[in-house]
């Protein structure tokens, strides 16, 4: 789950805003250009955003005895690359911060950095590394699961940086024991779902190649 409102000191809130804003702005610009240049990208963009909306609304119980929700960013990053994914995630995070008191306005930058930027970026790198070596399902599964899990590894480090306690690494390990361990089964479930969705999509739509995604 996201970092709650008020639970990052102002300095760190500002830091993550500065980190996330340019990426989100660039993602918004790229999404606009993409849809203008290729109207057939519009329904795919809607699918990518809808997957984030749907999955990040589901709070699921996990093996640790606590609940968390998947991120749903894997499909977006495979279809559109990291910057557009950052833009889509920031919309969902803003919705949750304003209407659900989930996450927060002050922590929006940090949560966008983890769920929208660094997590999906890791997933994307995994996808690029695997996509010519394995079947589509395997590369998409890995990308989505890694994007999901890394999101919460980043969250753990964000909190540990802000509240290092005696030792930064030990504190990070404590937070990872909460966020990342809970997330493992959810990340696997999300990977399976993302792989099914992508398999369905390739049956009916020509997917953009990674080269188009970068350009």
């Amino acid at each position, binding site marked *: 789950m996201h970092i709650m409102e008020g639970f990052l000191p102002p300095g760190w809130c500002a830091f993550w805003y500065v980190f996330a804003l340019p990426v989100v702005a660039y993602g918004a610009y790229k999404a606009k250009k993409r849809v203008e240049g290729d109207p057939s990208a519009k329904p795919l963009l809607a699918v990518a955003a809808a997957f984030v909306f749907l999955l990040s609304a589901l709070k699921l119980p996990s093996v640790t005895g606590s609940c968390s929700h998947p991120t749903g960013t894997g499909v977006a990053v495979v279809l559109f690359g990291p910057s557009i994914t950052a833009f889509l995630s920031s919309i969902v995070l803003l919705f949750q911060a304003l209407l*659900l008191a989930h996450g927060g306005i002050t922590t929006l930058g940090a949560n966008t950095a983890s769920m929208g930027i660094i997590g999906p970026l890791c997933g994307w790198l995994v996808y690029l590394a695997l996509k010519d070596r394995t079947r589509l399902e395997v590369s998409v599964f890995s990308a989505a699961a890694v994007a999901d899990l890394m999101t919460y590894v980043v969250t753990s480090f964000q909190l540990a940086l802000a509240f290092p306690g005696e030792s930064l690494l030990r504190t990070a390990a404590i937070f990872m024991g909460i966020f990342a361990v809970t997330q493992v089964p959810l990340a696997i479930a999300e990977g399976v779902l993302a792989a099914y969705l992508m398999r369905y999509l390739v049956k009916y739509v020509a997917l953009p190649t990674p080269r188009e995604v970068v350009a």
Partner: protein
Amino acid sequence: MRRSRLPSALFVLLIVLAVFWATKAAASEWAGTDEQAEEVISELNPDYEPWFSPVWEPPSGEIESLLFSLQAAVGAFVLGYVIGRFKGKEHAPA
């Protein structure tokens, strides 16, 4: 068709089992990870006061779950609509 339905059926079964198992394991509280993190923060830094509170909070847990369902419903609706359109195009006369 029969073959492709099996995974979805398994997935639903898995969720049902997970929820069932969750209600059986009474030892856990099934709190959100964000709440647990909050506890750790106040243990590590007893002096830390959240410096900002949500601008608006759902008045009750019921209303909160309504809004979460709404978020999921919007996502599921768009997914179903677009995928249905893609699939429908296949059968449409050229």
